[in-house]
């Protein structure tokens, strides 16, 4: 992303819009400027700000006049008055920043907008997490901190060493050159993203071990980590296994995402494949 200096009037609205705090008004040139190192190409500025198409020279002169009189400006705070933001043509590896930061950029690998996969949201049709299993979503960088991909590798190495299975369809797994060791592509390590989600699945008996491992490694990572734990409920719609483990570990579970079990496989090709592979699940 870039800000056209011929258009920018240094109103400063965009400095608040940036989730990474990477936009500032440079006093030397009196224009809003993007710290490219910190910018994660999330497009919150370009997509989120409304725009006007005012004449930049007129706006600058009005602003100068008001400033001389110490008069307060009170513009709409979500508007770029001169539509000064212009997207760059992103090249590899910088394009990785956008893929993991702009929710409207589709991951070609999964077809899902956003950073992860469908996880338990479609568990009723995918059967991804079965009874006796636990799916973890380990998210780095959110809210509002961001993460360098090289930092996430510390976690993927540790998880791989513990012998866990990374979710194959997760976009972050596809950045790995070696899934067995959790090693990531060398050329993306120095890219910063708004957030990235590592997804794994283990047997329920390893729940505590994985939580403790994540807790230990996150101390070495200079960002926030949001941990999600997904499981399949029993035939009565209850979870009497994972929730008690989490409570025993001291977690007060305030919020959850609940799959209501209303989904069905209806794509003709998928139906045939399902019937072939898993007749019990198909008849559910």
């Amino acid at each position: 992303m870039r800000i056209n200096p011929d258009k920018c009037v240094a109103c400063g609205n965009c400095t608040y819009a940036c989730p990474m705090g990477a936009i500032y008004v440079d006093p030397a040139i009196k224009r809003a400027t993007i710290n490219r190192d910190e910018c994660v190409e999330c497009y919150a500025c370009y997509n989120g700000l409304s725009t006007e198409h005012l004449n930049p020279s007129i706006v600058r002169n009005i602003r100068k006049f008001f400033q001389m009189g110490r008069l307060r400006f009170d513009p709409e705070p979500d508007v770029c008055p001169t539509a000064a933001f212009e997207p760059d043509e992103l090249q590899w590896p910088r394009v990785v920043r956008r893929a993991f930061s702009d929710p409207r950029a589709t991951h070609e690998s999964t077809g899902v907008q956003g950073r992860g996969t469908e996880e338990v949201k479609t568990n009723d049709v995918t059967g991804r997490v079965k009874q006796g299993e636990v799916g973890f979503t380990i998210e780095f960088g959110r809210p509002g901190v961001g993460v360098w991909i090289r930092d996430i590798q510390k976690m993927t190495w540790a998880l791989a060493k513990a012998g866990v299975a990374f979710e194959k369809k997760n976009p972050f797994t596809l950045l790995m050159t070696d899934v067995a060791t959790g090693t990531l592509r060398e050329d993306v390590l120095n890219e910063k993203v708004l957030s990235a989600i590592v997804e794994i699945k283990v047997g329920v008996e390893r729940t505590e071990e994985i939580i403790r491992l994540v807790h230990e490694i996150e101390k070495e990572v200079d960002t926030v980590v949001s941990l999600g734990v997904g499981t399949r409920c029993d035939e009565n719609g209850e979870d009497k296994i994972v929730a008690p483990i989490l409570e025993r570990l001291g977690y007060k579970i305030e919020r959850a995402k609940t799959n209501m079990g209303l989904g069905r496989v209806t794509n003709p090709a998928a139906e045939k494949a399902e019937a072939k592979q898993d007749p019990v699940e198909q008849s559910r």
Partner: protein
Amino acid sequence: MTNTLHRYGSAESFDDDYIVFATPSNGRNEIGSLPKLKKFLELALPFKPVNIGDPVHGGSLRPEKGLHTSANWNRDMTPNFQAVIDGLTEPASVVAIFDNQSSAEQFLKVAVEADLGLSVNMSTSVQGAVECCKFAGIKRHSVGYSLGFEGATDKLPNSQALALSTMCGHGMISSSLAKKMIDWVKEGRRTPAQAVTYMTRFCSCGVFNPVRAQRILEEARKKME
């Protein structure tokens, strides 16, 4: 996407936050799902959602490109629900947000009866979802718990800015903007209702809850935490 799971707040603070969404599964049931997704949102409207949306086009209040200068004085702040439904052009998760349990559970019951065949999830407090399932006469299939934020939590903003900014789980509402809106409300430069409209436009999928945000801003006006 875990964009609705990690909202910041206590279970009680989600009493006015019920997110119900329908998701087509890639390769399993997304073919022919577009009319079902539209139907899902249409079914939600009688229960007065506070926002609806999809991740491709956004929510019911969106950024406007090419505003006329007069918009600084008479800007349209009205959410447009029908535009979300009409503008849905491809299969994607669609979402309806409710500010009370009664509406959420009644909508869930209707969604069960409609039998659209899409995965339907509810994101709220654990107990809130359990009670909605009970009302709708269904059993939970799966559950994903949020264990909250860990690691370098010293980098996070104050609790009210955090509660506001995490209502866009994609992170498109910056904590700086949330803090600025709290300040503007405290200064009397904008009402909470006005401040909420600015933040709502940044949310790229419509999961932002303007009613909960307005409550948080009202609380912050009197006491910043």
